[in-house]
């Protein structure tokens, strides 16, 4: 173990520091991108990078399973679903959807309120518990085994309930989609054929 210090930090701490700044920077900048993008699709793509940045933070904390799940579920599934919804909507309406910042004042106020409520809470909690110095699990087991065991023992009920909820959501989505398709086919059979490619109504570029 090399314990040479540079400006008061070991090389390992420096690397962690730089890694944290990098991933947090990606998450922050792309979060702002979500806010300020004019096209909804651009916002969705920025959201993808934001979620990837958060995944990087998980990886830095040694929470590897969370890292994988974050990418798989949020970046891989939810971002894809949002983009898909936008794509189909734009195709159905034939014009680009723009997102404005119309409720700027209300947004700033509610964000400020959130900070005012959360900052003292977090501060008090941290002050009471002390800043955690070690994040990686020190037991011999891997993250996967630990999480799997907890799922099937202590949190079994929550785990099973979640899967039932997801199953219900899935079946519900199928039922809704089927009903809609049937009524579509009765009303306008040629509706699918006439749709033109999307034509951007606005030449806005991302800021």
């Amino acid at each position, binding site marked *: 173990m090399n314990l040479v210090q540079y400006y008061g930090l070991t090389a390992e701490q420096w690397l962690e520091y730089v890694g944290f700044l990098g991933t947090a920077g990606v998450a922050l900048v792309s979060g702002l991108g979500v806010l300020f993008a004019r096209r909804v699709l651009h916002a969705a793509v920025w959201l993808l990078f934001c979620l990837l940045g958060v995944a990087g933070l998980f990886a830095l904390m040694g929470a590897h399973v969370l890292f994988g799940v974050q990418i798989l579920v949020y970046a891989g599934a939810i971002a894809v679903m949002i983009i898909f919804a936008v794509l189909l909507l734009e195709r159905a309406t034939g014009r680009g959807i723009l997102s404005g910042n119309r409720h700027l004042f209300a947004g700033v106020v509610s964000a400020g309120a959130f900070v005012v409520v959360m900052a003292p809470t977090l501060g008090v909690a941290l002050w009471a518990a002390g800043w955690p110095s070690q994040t990686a699990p020190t037991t011999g087991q891997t993250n996967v085994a630990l999480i799997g065991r907890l799922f099937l023992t202590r949190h079994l009920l929550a785990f099973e309930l979640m899967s039932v909820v997801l199953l219900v959501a899935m079946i519900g989505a199928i039922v809704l989609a089927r009903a809609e398709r049937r009524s579509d086919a009765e009303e306008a059979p040629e509706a699918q054929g006439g749709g033109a490619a999307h034509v951007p109504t606005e030449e806005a*570029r*991302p800021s």
Partner: protein
Amino acid sequence: MIADWAERIRAFSEGLCTRFGIPGLLVDVLAWIFGAIFVLLLITVVALAAIYLERKVSGYIQSRLGPMRVGPIGLFQTPMDALKLLEKEDIVPRDADRFLHLLGPVLLVSATVMMFAVIPWDVRANVGRWLDWEIGLLYLVAVSGIGMLGIVCGGWGSNNKWSLLGALRGVAQLISYEIPLVLAAMCVVLQAETLSLSQMVEQQQAGIWAWFLWRPWLMLPAILLLIAGIAEVNRTPFDIPEAESELVAGFHTEYSGMKFGLFFLAEYTHLFVVGLLFAVLFLGGWASPLGGSNLPFEGLVWLNLKAWIFVLIAMWVRWTLPRLRVDQLMAMCWKLLIPASFAALVIVGVVLMYA
């Protein structure tokens, strides 16, 4: 053992660093950079070789010779084509969304390259390091999901109805076929009791009969992974996203020059990664079929050979079978492959519980 060459290179560079007073952690950083360069060189060579092989295989299957003019037996044909693509004009349609048009190929290629991070190349090449993750397989599946966003960005950003249709079909197909792929891989996870790819290989290194492929209850998952893997890289029985007869070229209709080249690079690299995954899960990864590997770099050679077997099978299938229709494609996935893979998961679970 001579085989842990990675360990030796590491020890050597560590000694070098101690002598010159470089902190130990920089050794890791240097090793990551060398690894990244290795992967980038590898995918370039692999993509060029795979495209050449594809042309030759298709030629022989159709009673032709394939490329013969440039270089001996046409060996320089693909490098020359790559050079041509590099110097071609990069055309972006006027009403295209420039940001997304550029992001498409970039996302697709970077997702494919990121998948290489957890491939166990050789005995202890990355065991216990950051990249030998306990979540290796989960990471691989998760990262491959980012690639389909590249397809969407490219297809939507081109402002072309064929591109958009190709992208929509592509994503629908990728999402659908990911389910049997993951479920088939889960069967191997049940058998190996780990998500780490190098630990899976370690359980199969006793020789050819220790491969997971020969366990009777793992044969069905192997076939499912083969089919879903070919579908996952959009190759011909499943190449609905770029069906030439219907969609011009699908999501990359509006691409030219090197951006078009990047789509091809991603396609063939992805094919190779799926081959590597198949080799690791079922064919013993870097383990020699004779059991144990004693020569330096032997594991690297074995793993590559096994992955190329998958690539060759994929090419053979591509030039033999006709393309499926969209509805047939979806029906095959949802009505055949997914029930079969659930059944396989149950069978493997029951067998492992009582055997």
